[in-house]
């Protein structure tokens, strides 16, 4: 039987793990690193690189190096987030035929699932090399606040990489699984996950081999990369002021600034101050070389990003409220994601919860380990921890006047089903359109449309008289079924909501086929 791996597909780095003889093992790549940069690049000679090799050449080849693709996954091209993000990226974004985001690398246009698929394929290869066997199935993690389209597009990426995804689980949940593995204590825990691109908070209770998610919340547009960007902005402004030169349009300079910012940020987790030196960053009007040299203190950094850290607090409170727990009832706080290494973040969390966060987990690896545990639990019938999960976003239908009627609230434990009765709004109306939505806004249009169908054949009558019963049902796999029934005639119509990613099934199959056929990516390290 082929083994099932757990993959943490991160914004910045990815990690793969497996359960071996009941023990989680984080699998190192050929270079001996336990995490691999989620970066894809094409060199001038047309060679494709992924991982550390791609990262190493990023500065000299910024235009053709794609990083942080996860922030674009499942998003539409004209969304405000993408528009904002586009300005800051050294690589070129183009609009796809489905209004999806694509990137142009060395003259070829790639879809986002393809880029993520390339990274996943690399993780699959790392695992196969270690196991000496092919791997076809995986459990993969996503930020808790990913919507259906983002989850489905992640699934599509797996498909392109030749992986069947048994389950997609939330990153903080995976971290809790890893923490709870082999632990018998009954506890309430909070997982504070500040990664490269997203912030997630989950509240769970565990004991007796069961881990139950009580609530989860987050912000898909808040992460370590935002911290880096704040530093870059600071460097740009500082340089403009000192030298009168605007570096914003210079992709190579921007890439160097980004690298320097990230490094300085990491240094400042240990040191009180660090120096940023970037020689020959630009030239002035007289073609004289200009250098950047600047001292960055921890204090200044905290001033630059303080509001970002602050932004997490109300989200944590909301998760606690949803879980019906108070801060005092939390027994353990786990920190996940590289950005939680920052002392300011740790201090904020410790102050909020009134206790020092748990030190035992490796924030870079714990999510992949949790995914591996869930993989084993599903595929090998292990007595391993059983995960009782919740639905991350509210589900409902659009109603008259553009309102959103929620039938299933976010953080509802799955499986579950709910019913409501609706009626017509016009006299002699013989059909109703059921539009299935996901999101938190009361306005229908602000939420994501998951699917729609029409229930016809309603006998004509005055408005408000027909009774249309709408039922939502979510199974343990998170698959949503919606049915509508005219109670007078018994006529019914139902759909299984097949979440749509940004690619059509045909495109996915074609890409999966192409990569299967050995459109090989140069790899090593």
């Amino acid at each position: 039987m082929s083994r099932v791996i757990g993959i943490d597909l991160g914004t910045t780095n990815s990690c793969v793990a497996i359960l071996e003889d009941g023990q989680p093992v984080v699998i190192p790549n050929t270079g001996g690193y336990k995490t691999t940069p989620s970066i894809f690049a094409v060199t001038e000679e047309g060679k494709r690189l992924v991982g550390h090799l791609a990262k190493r050449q990023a500065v000299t080849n910024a235009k053709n190096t794609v990083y942080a693709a996860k922030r674009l996954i499942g998003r539409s091209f004209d969304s405000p987030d993408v528009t904002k993000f586009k300005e800051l990226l050294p690589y070129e974004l183009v609009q796809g035929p489905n209004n999806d985001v694509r990137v142009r690398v060395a003259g070829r246009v790639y879809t986002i699932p393809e880029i993520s698929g390339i990274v996943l394929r690399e993780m699959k290869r790392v695992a196969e090399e270690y196991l000496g066997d092919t791997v076809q199935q995986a459990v993969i993690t996503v930020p808790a606040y990913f919507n259906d389209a983002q989850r489905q597009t992640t699934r599509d990426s797996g498909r392109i990489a030749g992986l069947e995804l048994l389950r997609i689980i939330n990153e903080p949940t995976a971290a809790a699984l890893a923490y709870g593995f082999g632990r018998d204590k009954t506890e309430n825990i909070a997982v504070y996950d500040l990664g490269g691109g997203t912030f997630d908070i989950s509240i769970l209770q565990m004991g007796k081999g069961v881990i139950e998610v009580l609530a989860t919340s987050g912000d898909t547009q808040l992460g370590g990369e935002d911290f880096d960007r704040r530093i870059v902005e600071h460097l740009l402004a500082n340089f403009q002021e000192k030298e009168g030169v605007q570096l914003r349009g210079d992709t190579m300079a921007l890439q160097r600034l980004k690298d320097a910012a990230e490094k300085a940020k990491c240094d400042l987790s240990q040191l009180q101050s660090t120096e940023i030196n970037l020689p020959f960053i630009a030239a002035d009007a007289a073609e004289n070389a200009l250098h950047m040299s600047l001292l960055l203190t921890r204090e200044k950094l905290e001033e630059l990003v303080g509001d970002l850290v602050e932004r997490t607090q109300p989200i944590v409170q909301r998760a606690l409220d949803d879980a019906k727990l108070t801060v005092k009832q939390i027994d353990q706080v786990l920190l996940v994601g590289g950005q939680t290494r920052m002392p300011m973040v740790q201090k904020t969390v410790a102050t909020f919860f009134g206790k020092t966060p748990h030190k035992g987990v490796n924030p870079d690896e714990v999510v992949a380990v949790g995914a591996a545990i869930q993989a084993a639990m599903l595929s090998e019938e292990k007595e391993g921890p059983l995960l009782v999960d919740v639905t991350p976003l509210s589900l409902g239908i659009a109603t008259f006047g553009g309102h959103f009627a929620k039938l299933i609230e976010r953080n509802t434990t799955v499986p579950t089903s709910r019913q409501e009765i609706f009626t017509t709004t016009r006299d002699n109306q013989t059909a109703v359109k059921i539009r299935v939505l996901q999101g938190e806004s009361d306005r229908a249009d602000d939420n994501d449309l998951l699917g729609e169908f029409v229930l016809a054949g309603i006998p004509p009558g005055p408005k408000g008289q027909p009774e249309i019963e709408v039922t939502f049902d979510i199974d343990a796999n998170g698959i949503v079924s919606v049915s509508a029934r005219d109670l007078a005639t018994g006529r019914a119509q139902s759909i299984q909501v097949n979440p749509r990613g940004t690619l059509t099934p045909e495109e996915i199959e074609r890409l999966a086929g192409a990569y299967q056929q050995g459109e090989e990516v140069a790899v090593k390290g």
Partner: protein
Amino acid sequence: MGSSTDGEAASNEAAKAGARVDLPDAFQREIREFAKALPSLNYYDVLGVPREAEPAEIRDAFFQRSKTYHPDRYFKKELGPYGELLHEVYKRIVAAHDVLRDSKLRGAYDRSLTPTTAESRPVVLPPPAVPVSRAPTSGRGASLRSRLGLKSPGLMLVSLQRQLEQSRARAAKQFEAAMLQKKNGDWARAAQLVELALAFDPREKRYHDELAEILPRANAERASEVRRKAEILLRGDRAGAAELLEEAAQLSPTDAELAHKLAELLAGLEGGLEKAAVYVERAVSLDEENVRFRKAAGEIYRKSGDSQKARKHLQKAWELDPMDKGIRQALHTLPASDAAKETS
């Protein structure tokens, strides 16, 4: 995006009815029983906790139930119709926990329960999948209703009626499949399918009647099969044979010869005397005038040191067959002290 009609769903149901199921028989039975009982269970029953249970007790019960009934436990298994039953059962477990873990919801739910126990209540419609206390009678839900010109909350009952009809349709499919198996002479399979039908629709008299007819035959069939296997085992693995015969004895509780045979077998096994006594008593009660059964009972009680009972059975055996010297001898070998006690 796939859209399907009820007709398709029904034919899927029929296909599932004949499918292979990768669950132990005992667990299949357990799921059927649970699903069958759902309509009459309140949230406390569903979690198996008393009405006055502490929050920690409710949480632990939920964890325990999750470990047994969460569909993920059987992720790679072929579940056939049990997938759906498990889904329904676990949904109720979740709903029960959702309400009982929240003191406000629990209070409202407690007030909605009649003070009498489940047994004394008439059979009620299944509580809605929406926890009662969460049904929108006020607040956001109510405003939604008025905005849409919705009918009174009483309509939820109508929707339950629909839900019930869906279950009935499913039950009918299982029943149809059962009748097919019955025609083929597969009584065991037929009985299982009727039980499934009952799990979906516990109130249909026709199913109960049919089960009453099929079950004894299915059990007899299974018992004879088990006995055949036991005969083979008797030559070697006597403990294994005893286990199989016990199953057979459970399936045919009125077979005195079987009970006797099992008792003799158990008496020869280490630690088997206690059970042997149970089965030999059964044999005797089914045929009180049987000398062999009485003798066996005497022998088993003698071995277990209960001289009083041994004497009773042996004396009866002697009355039935005064010419049997063995019985006389056995009576004499019983310790005298007991006899003394008896007379004193």
